[in-house]
């Protein structure tokens, strides 16, 4: 089984053109698990680890451009955490230090697991993914266009996820992940909330409670009504003990499986969204991890 290690994007595309069935390898933390379990038998592998264009991140105007090869450890770095705190929070919930050093943003997106921990925050941030082909073609898509089912994406053979764009400092961001262990665990429910005070918008996304990440638009609409944008505080029932539980439970479409029950997932997603809102409006700064 040939493994190519291209040193540039151009080289990577050249290899892909010659071997259309080739499979992309980034940090290998999903890929190699599947190989070892006999579920993936690649004929050709293109390892992206040495492609400089996919690495790191940069600012482009008021956008942050995140390379597909950005690792979780890099997402947690203070400089980036200040610009996209929600992503840093999500990255800190992932795996163990070893996984955070190896695993990448691109790999998390392309794996398209309903439990992929960066996905709810990317959805709430309204992130745009740029995909590239060897013929120079590029397309920019939202998460809902890219991830269409559990482990199913619209990535075409030979297509490479290049980068992810999000707005820098887009308001208060909160990510909460419920797992059945205190670390190194797959989410049974998660929630991402972004409250953008400048644009006066609210975005809510739920993880692990449906086949793909769910954007909870009904919750967003109701939440917007409960915000006093000028005073930057919550009004109405949320001030007290009110919650979004019922709305979130309705938006969620979870299943029963060996990790949890649908009923608990709905319930937990509701708790997470409510807590995320309270934090977003608390006087304390949003905690970077």
């Amino acid at each position: 089984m040939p493994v190519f290690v291209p040193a540039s994007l151009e080289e990577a595309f050249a290899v892909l053109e010659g071997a259309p069935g080739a499979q992309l390898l980034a940090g290998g933390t999903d890929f190699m698990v599947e190989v070892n379990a006999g579920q993936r038998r690649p004929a050709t592998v293109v390892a992206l680890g040495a492609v400089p264009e996919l690495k790191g991140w940069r600012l482009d105007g008021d956008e942050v451009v995140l390379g597909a090869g950005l690792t979780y450890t890099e997402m947690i770095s203070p400089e980036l955490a200040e610009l996209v705190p929600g992503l840093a929070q999500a990255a800190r919930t992932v795996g163990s230090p070893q996984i955070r050093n190896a695993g990448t943003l691109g790999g998390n997106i392309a794996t398209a697991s309903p439990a992929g921990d960066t996905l709810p925050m990317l959805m709430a941030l309204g992130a745009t993914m740029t995909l590239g082909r060897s013929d120079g073609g590029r397309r920019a898509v939202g998460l809902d266009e890219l991830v269409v089912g559990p482990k199913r994406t619209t990535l075409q053979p030979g297509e490479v996820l290049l980068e992810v764009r999000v707005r820098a400092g887009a308001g208060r961001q909160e990510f909460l992940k419920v797992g059945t262990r205190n670390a190194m665990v797959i989410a049974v429910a998660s929630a991402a909330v972004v409250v953008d005070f400048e644009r006066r918008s609210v975005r809510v996304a739920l993880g692990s409670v449906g086949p793909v990440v769910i954007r909870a638009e009904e919750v967003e609409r109701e939440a917007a009504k409960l915000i006093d944008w000028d005073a930057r505080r919550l009004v109405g029932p949320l001030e007290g003990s009110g919650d979004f539980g019922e709305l979130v439970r309705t938006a969620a479409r979870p299943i029963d499986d060996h990790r949890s029950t649908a009923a608990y997932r709905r319930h937990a997603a509701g708790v997470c969204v409510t807590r995320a809102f309270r934090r977003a409006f608390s006087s304390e700064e949003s905690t970077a991890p």
Partner: protein
Amino acid sequence: MTTVLTTGPGLRGGLGESVRRPDGGPKARGEFAFSSDLEAEDMLWAHLLRSPHPSAAISSLDLSPAFAVPGVAAVLAAGDVPGRQSFGLDYPDQPVFAGKVVRHVGEPIAAVAADHPITARRAAEAIAVTYEVTEPLTDPEAAMEAPPIHERGNVLFHQDIVHGDPGATGEVSVEGSYATAMQDQAFLGPESALAVPAGDGGVDLYLATQWLHVDRDQIAACLGLPLDLVRLHLSGVGGAFGAREDMSMQVQLCLLAMRTGRPVKIVFSREESFLGHVHRHPARMWYRHSADADGNLVKVEAKLILDGGAYLSSSPAVLQNAACFAAGPYRVPNAVVDATAVRTNNPPCGAMRGFGAVQVCFAYETQMDKLAAALRMDPVELRLRNALRTGDTMITGQVLSGAAPVAEVIRAVAAAPLPAEPGPSDAPEIALPGGAGRTAERDRVRRGIGFAVGFKNLMYSAGFDDFTTARCRLEEGRVTITSAAVEVGQGLVTLMQQIARHIFGVADVSLGEATTAGIGSAGSTSASRQTWMTGGAVEAACRAVAERLVSSVAQRLERPLASLRLDGGRVCSDDGAVDLSLVGAASGQVFEETAVYRHPPTEELDEKGQGNAHVSFAFGAHRAVVDVDLDLGLVRVVDVTTAQDVGRALNPLQLIGQIEGGTAQGVGLAVMEEIVLDRGTVRNPSFTDYIIPTALDSPPVTIAGLIEEPEPGAPHGAKGAGEPPAISSTAAVAAAIRDATGLELARVPIRPQDIALALAAFEEDRQ
């Protein structure tokens, strides 16, 4: 409280010291060879084809597609087993290869040897099996009445205990039904071995196991070979906890080696490991406790059902333990226990650390808390009032003759200071329930405290002829200890050296190979028995050599034997005229002695469950402190404090290791560890989904007391400490979660939904 055992002037590394393990450095550096690291020239790789169904008839089996795969050297199935067709620790009811039926998911049907592990796996997958799938029998209660799924029936073992007056009544009684899930030993080193065919028609098997000789006996029976042609050699063991007591692939691997005439290696994948070894029996338990108004226990009634899965394994002994210890370490004058282990199409269950004592401890300790509440009594006070003492009679009629510091372990734990309450912003966020998930809201976190006491037997019980063999050789001043006892990580290798140093007063003690070739059985590394048993045999062998050495000096120098002694590595006379080093004393001679050690005999239980079935018992108590997120049901175990009855601390560091590890395994069962079954199929055969505590889930284990009351009859007074620390931590954590939430929580592991949805429903009812 610690007693210093001296090992001669100036010598380090003797008994009572926290001696470092000889294999510690290599293990920490990644240089230790585990059984999965074995290699031989020209070696083949084996793979087992396993049943995907919990219950099916095999209507046809076509091996030819596997033979057709290039690189395949042999394919074997039922019909290729020359000797006995089945194996089993208690009775051979488990086929080497399933023939006409499969009874559990993962049951081996065929075995392939090929030039590469992937070739072997693909060839096994190519085998054509036609199954007529039948409805699996997975409900243990239904199993008792259901049509038998094995010719030996669905009741694997039944044990009644009737003690005192079954009609006795108390003024207060509490009742409850409890359940524990199927736990896995979750060792890290998967099943692995290398079989090498020998020129004499026999086979050498290098493997990780818990008892070389009993594996050998079973393999030889299935291969149809005399015992001396089957030689087992211990390879590096990556954990065991009971899961390596049964055989998993030994016979199949030897058969492949003998068929091909080449060395054959096997290493299970993690999924195969989960399917290929026995688990802790899930239990369903009904209890009624009766007491007088002062809180003296009057009667305990229990009905226990253990799910043994498809085959017998060690179910009878596990069940007997559950029954014997069903009332806990308390004085219970009257008891009625009705205990049954049943056969189902679930994965086979057998030995796991705690061996039947863990399940009942969860139930009886929950009952004790209920009883305390009903009596409006402090739960610690209730336990102290009823705590067993030396001289008391247990529900099996056996009088406790050894050390029984039950009240001492309870008091030590109860007196230990509690960890500080977290202030509003004191604890870092990651230390709150939910940990790295950032979910906790401090004002929705409640603290709870729980308490539990447990006990179990040490060594084999109920009339079993339990013995162990060890050899000591003294040559040119060097001591070599040889035994077939298995080191599974607990530290027997350290202890054997400590004992030899203690007797000979020399620093340099080597260990011989653990093998069935050339030395007798050391018994199983289980039942918390090797410190006592192999420790006893090593001590006896060393003493025999020492005596021969001294008497040879006496003879040579024509001095009365009584005037000479071995002291601090020298043979000396009282008058100081003789003072020889070991080399000088031996004067070119080599001394070798083999000793066999037996513990005092035990009896079988009679039909009323009465009899002196056990040699010795160890007791322990845990207090758990937990924080619970009331809305999400997430738990963080903040602290576990324990006191253990250890007899003597022969190596305090290793002892603490056992206590911390056992406690953590109990914490795992309390809050997360469960083999999830769906109609006989394991849904989580991986470490992705069979979750065990991480560093963030394992609380600091505070040792409030190592109670050193020497056990009469035990070498150096030491009790085994492998299992006792694993018994009551589950119950303590569950009690703490109950304390925090006010919920009943009658099943472990306690899942987030058990807490969060119950509290939410409760809230809703109130509104």
